[in-house]
Structure formats: C-alpha cells, structure tokens
C-alpha cells in the first residue's frame, strides 16, 4: 500500500508567519480569512512555533466521535466531512488530538484539511516562505532524521 503523505512542520524553521493560514483560506475558501484556514499555527511563548494540519491517523478519532456519521476516511487517509450531515456539534474537534478540525461559524459546519487533493502538493506547503512545511511520508521523515544524525557524526569525525 502506498504510504500516506502528511504535512510535516519543521519547528526550527517555522517562524509563525501564518502565511500557511492565509494561503489556505485564499485557495480553499476564496477569501482572506485565516480563521477559516484548515492548517493551524500555534505559538508557545517565547520561542516555539508549529503549524499543524490533519495527521491522517490510522484510527481517526474524529470519525469515531461524530454522532451523525458525517466524517468518512478517504483512500489517501484524509477525512471528508459531509456538509449535509454535519451540524457543527464539534465533538470531532474535541476528539482530535491535534486541533486539526475547525468549526466554520458562518457555514455552521466543520472543515478540515483535504491536502488540496487535486494538486501535487498542498498550497500551504508550496508557499511556505521558510520551507518549514513538507508534504511527505512518516517513513521519509524517519529517513531524513537518520541522514541528519549520520551527517552530524561525519562532520564531527571530520
């Protein structure tokens, strides 16, 4: 089976500029409104920044929590929200460990990242000016970490 690709944030590189949120709302909602973004920047003062979107969990708690069966898993591992069934109760938001769902107050419906399904990579990743976001697999994240660790050893040994 093909590995799931998710949006990974390098917290060293993330500056908290929130351009991912701007881009998400512009491309997905056709408006400038970062509170409607499906990716969420979080800052823990004084020096930690991260942007978090859906993690494509193996057993999505959001699906389990929804009392109206409005959330379903897609072949790529993302979840889809049936706008007709969702009534904005927000149990999925409570259930998600990552804050990856958001209630759209105007539409009274929950929204979450669909990874810009029709594109090669999500717009937030494409336009992150700091290259802090990557659309990648967890296997690749592990591989990169291994490479980095090995590079450090090589550098130390000269």
């Amino acid at each position: 089976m093909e590995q799931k690709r998710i949006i990974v944030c390098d917290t060293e590189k993330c500056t908290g500029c929130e351009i991912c949120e701007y881009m998400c709302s512009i491309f997905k909602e056709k408006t400038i409104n970062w509170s409607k973004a499906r990716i969420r920047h979080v800052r823990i003062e004084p020096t930690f920044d991260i942007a978090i979107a859906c993690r494509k969990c193996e057993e999505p708690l959001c699906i389990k929590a929804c009392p109206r069966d409005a959330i379903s898993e897609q072949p790529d591992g993302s979840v889809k929200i049936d706008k007709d069934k969702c009534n904005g109760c927000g149990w999925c938001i409570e259930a998600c460990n990552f804050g990856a769902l958001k209630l759209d107050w105007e539409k009274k419906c929950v929204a979450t990242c669909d990874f810009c399904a029709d594109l090669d990579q999500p717009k937030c990743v494409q336009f992150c000016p700091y290259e802090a976001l990557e659309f990648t697999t967890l296997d690749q994240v592990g591989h990169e970490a291994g490479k980095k660790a090995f590079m450090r050893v090589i550098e130390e040994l000269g």
Partner: protein
Amino acid sequence: MKGYAGKFVRVNLTTGETGKERLKEDVARNFVGGYGLVAHTLYNEVPEGADALSPENVVCLWSGPVAGTPIPVSSKYAMGALSPLTGFIGFGIASGGIGSELKAAGWDGIVVTGKADSPKYIYVHNGQVEVRDASHLWGKTTWKTEELIREELFDDEVRVSSIGPSGEMMNRIANITNDRNRQIGRCGIGAAMGSKNLKAIAIRGTGSVEVPDLDELLEFCLDLHQRCRGPATEKYRKYGTPANVLVHNRLGCLPTNNFQKGTFDQAEAVSGEKMLETMVKKITACPACPIGCDHINMVKDGPWAGTVASVDYESLDLLGPNCGVADLNAITKAVELCDTLGVDTISAGATVSWAMEAYEKGLLTKEDVDGLDLRFGEGEAMVEAVRRMCMREGNLGELLADGAARAAEKLGKDSEKFVIANKKMEWGAYSMRPLQTATLGFATSVRGACYLRSGSYQVDVKGTVDRYHLDRSRGKIVYDGENLYSIIDSLIICKFTRGIYKDNDEIAKVIRLVTGFDVDSEEMIKTGERIHNQAKLFNVKFGAGRKDDYPPPRAFEEKLYDDVSDGAVIDRAEYDEALSGYYEARGWNEEGIPTKALLEELGLDTSLGV
C-alpha cells in the same frame, strides 16, 4: 471602499460609552491609514494647549488598507497621541498581529478620549466593543497582561497591546507592547494610555478581509514573497537588524559612550554575528511576513540566565555600546526589563548613558545614583539603572523616569549639553557628526529624533554624499524620503520590505490592488506630502518653530575623535543652510511654518499657515 473595514471604534473612557463611526472615503484616500490617520485624528481632535497627560488628550490606533492582506508584513498598526515626551505629535508603528486582527474584526481604528475613573481595558471582538475592568491587571507586566487577558477571555488568539507599570506611572518614555516582542516604542504614548487609566486594548476578529480582486492581488503578493527571500532582505533574515553593529562601527557611526565616540573597541563582542552564534534561540516573524527578522535571544548563564528577549539594533546599541557595555547578556536583560515594565529601549539606553556621563563627570554623586557603579561599561549597573528607571525607584529612578532631557532639567549643572535628543526625544543609534544628512533628518523629524521618518542616513552610509558636511541640497533628500516614508507608514508596510519594490509605481500598485482607488505614484507621493504636512501642522498648533529642528549641542560644539573620525563636527552655518534648504524644499517659511498656498494645494486647514 475595499481594503478598509470602513468604520472605526470610538470609546469615551470618561462616560464609558462606545460607538462606531464611518471612515469617510475621502479621508481614507487623502490620509491612507496608520500614520496619516493618526495625524488627521490628532490634528482635528486634540485641543490647542492640551496637556498630554490630561483627559483632553486623544489616544488613537489605526491600521492601514493593506492590514490583513497577504502583502508582505501587512499586519502592522500605528498608535498616536499628543506626546507626553515631546509635547508635539506622538506616534509609533509596530508589527505583530494587531493591525490584521483589527481588520478581521471589522474595524480600521480605535479612537479613545477622556479618562476612566479606574483601570480599564478595551476589548474589541468582531462587532462588539467592551470597556472592561482592569484593576486586577494594574501593576502587571505587559507579558503577564497579555497572558491574563487571553485566559479570562478563553481565547489564545486575542491580540493585546498593553502598558506596563511605567505607563501606569505616566513615565514620559513609557511604551506599549503587543504580541510580546513588538512595541509602539517612541514618544511616550504608553504614558498617555496610563493617564487615561487604560491598561490595554485587546482585539479578536474572525471576519474576512475584502479586496477588489483577490486573484490579481495574490499574483502580485506571491511575486513579492519571492522577492522577500532574495538579496534585498538577506541581512534581516540572517542576523536581523544587529547586522548593523559592525557596519556602523566600520563607518565610525556606532554611538558609543553617550555619543562621545562613533566606534566601540569591543564591537565584535556585541555584533549581530556574535549574537547569532551565542545568543539567538529562535528567529520568528510577524503575521504575513516572509522575511523573519526577529531574533530572539536567550541568556544561557550568569545572573540573568533564562532571560528571553527580542533584541534589535537600536536597543542593542543604546543599551550596549552607547553605555560602553559589551555584554550581550546584560543587553538582553535590559531589553526584557524595558519590554515587560514598559519603557522604550532607545530612550532607556540614551537616558542611562546620559546618567553615566554625568556620573563620570562628577555631576551625579554616589548618593544621587543610590550607590550604583554607574561608569560606562558597567553592565550590571546599566541593567539595575534601567530597572529603577522603569519603576521610578530611588533617587536614580525618579531622576531618569521621564527621559534624559527632563533628567537634565532637574539636575542642571550644564548637563543639558550632553543630552542627545531632539524635541526632548532621545536620539536613535546613528552618530550625529559622521552622518550629517541623517542628523538633518533626525532633527527635523516631526516626532523628535528619529531615523525612521526619512531614512536620510542611507545617502550617508552609501557614500553618495559627503557625510561629514552639509549643504542646501540635503533638504531635498530629507523631503523626498519623508514623503515616501509617510506613505509606507500609512499603508502600513514594513520598511524592511522597501527594497523589494522596484520603484514607487509598485507601491502605488499595492494601494490600487488593496483599495481599488485609482492612485498613481504621483498622487501617492502628493498624499505622503499631505500626511507629513498634517503632522507638521499639529506641531505648529503646539508651538513648533525653527528652534525645534536642531541637533543637540554636542553635534556643533565637540569634535569627534575615534578610530574613524578625526575631528568631525557639524558646522553650524552649514547646518543652517541645509535646514533652510529643507524648508525651501517643503514650501515652508524660514521658521518652518507651511504657507497657506501649500496647505490649500494639499487640501489641509490653512488657518495656521503663513
């Protein structure tokens, strides 16, 4: 009218009433936003002869039309009031998220009048405006205030601008902090807030920002974002503004020991390069900023271990080399004290350095300084002096709390001679004598000594003029810089992005894309001229004249000798000629008063013109 929310909040703290008022289209087009709307509001609403610390003063906050859009660093805002420090127009501009949040809440500005009978804060949440009790926040630091307000409103995304204890005590160099590391630093507007019993302004917005054509704007923004990652902003990205330390030291214009020198023998120890290597814990950015200049230091060891603060060039020089201090830990601690207790770092550093010189000259006794070893170079004494100044503690704190000019008035003994200020506001980190075009810009600045009004230091630093001499033509350079910067400060875009725009036409394009106003670069520059004259008129209303547009005595009376300069000094006749050249370029008379003809052409009130 796109780009704007089209309305602003009015709060009368005396009555507790809040209301909304429409932002008229002609006012928006003529004054743009930010600095322009601050100048327009203050000129029309602060009565002649008002005391800056009385309920008659007006504190206003304005975003600009780009706020909330993806234009690089569009999140800025401006605040203004009759300055408690200068007695003239007071305003400052800060980044962080206030400007964009206010726009998302559906407002362009907030105008606060009167005085509350007990501590209050204003909470703007989309269409709702509340004046809330702040008794429990009084006495708290700015950082704690942000935290407590978010807690009590159950919302981590509330943006807060607040004053610290210094503003509460109406210290005339008190500032306003937002988003922890960003400040409306200059002109003592924090004291004006304190005088109104206004502890903070909290903002939360979840609405959309409307522009005429989103696709067209986006296309230009993405191009600008790319440029923000290019050579024009490289120094800000890598070292942040402290990159200037070694550059200025090489040019002999790094203020050292209260501007007695322009080179610092330990400059390497406080350079941007050294800071990045040893202190910087994280680089952060303001909302919608693809540059990321904010270098956050962490003190790793010693008495201030664990201190975290964002250190910029101006703060670094004034609290560092200008106090003879070569210890980045001490500088970082002093910045943290200023940011949390609520004092402008530039004024703080310049005031302490004045006290150090007075102490070394024997004008301040050990008793006057409460036993501190207040010699140049003493980092611990500098930090402690800053703390006492912020808190008005002891003899020294009481002496310094309102800035260097007022400290010298109290002390006397000719100590006014080495106050490095203009209009009682302390000088930024550009030496006077080796950067003489810069000095003309600083001294003619409407808000007091300031490098940000015209950027006239650039011709000196780049070497396109003889920086050790002045002539009549420099006036035009300051004039051109001021007109453009007035627009930049009104839109409001970050000055660090000025290099990414190919020309003024591209800045005019920004106005067209966000507002839909059919503005070309010619109209834009004319608008900048109007805004600047509006600010100047405010000063004229408060008695400004030629006498207020001079640098301090040190610039004329003492020759500068250091590793670079060999006797540099400003020739008074040359300065007078350059100042007249500036007035001439501006269309003002020899006293620096705008002519009625000019004011009429700009569509401004002509009653104070000549």
